[in-house]
């Protein structure tokens, strides 16, 4: 069964550094998402992306964050100048249709630790 994959599984970075988290969505999916989960807290929506554009973003997704689909397979989340509070699990998700009745398929996550 096709899966969403994410790399790296764990990223440690120093405060102020830039990180890029990578995701490979399921190949025939067209809609892509990033969520984060701070340790012990709930999963929070960051951004959705379709046709090379952000379609929706939360208030968490400020100028520090950006997303890109640099080629036909990868979907990346860039965090500029990381802060301690960016430490979290970051999940990528994708689906074929954005309509509400469709479930999203999640990757295994990247654990980001900012020191």
């Amino acid at each position: 069964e096709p899966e969403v994959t994410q790399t790296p599984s764990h990223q440690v970075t120093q405060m102020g550094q830039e990180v890029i988290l990578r995701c490979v969505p399921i190949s025939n999916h067209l809609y892509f998402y990033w969520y984060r989960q701070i340790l012990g807290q709930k999963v929070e929506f960051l951004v959705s992306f379709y046709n090379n554009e952000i379609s929706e973003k939360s208030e968490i997704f400020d100028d520090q964050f950006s997303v890109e689909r640099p080629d036909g397979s990868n979907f990346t989340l860039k965090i500029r100048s990381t802060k301690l509070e960016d430490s979290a699990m970051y999940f990528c998700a994708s689906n074929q249709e954005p309509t509400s009745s469709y479930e999203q398929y999640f990757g295994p996550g990247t654990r980001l630790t900012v020191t």
Partner: protein
Amino acid sequence: AQSVAQPEDQVNVAEGNPLTVKCTYSVSGNPYLFWYVQYPNRGLQFLLKYITGDNLVKGSYGFEAEFNKSQTSFHLKKPSALVSDSALYFCAVRDWAGQNFVFGPGTRLSVLP
């Protein structure tokens, strides 16, 4: 605004006993409701969803959930729990126009042998 509540942080149940993980929601219009499970060091796995129709929906691994519109609830159930069901369970909601999930805080299920 949409919201999801999972009133129990932790549910403990003995193997072989029925289990229930509770979820209540608030959304404008008709809700689309989902359950996901998260095993240690894994991503979220889709279990089941309610879109319309029969209030009792069946999903993966023997789980089912009952939609109750009057109580705005969508409780997850399983008739006979397995130790391997021990995981973190998330309820999520979308409204008819939304692309993105609003997740509940999660309930940790522990099934004891």
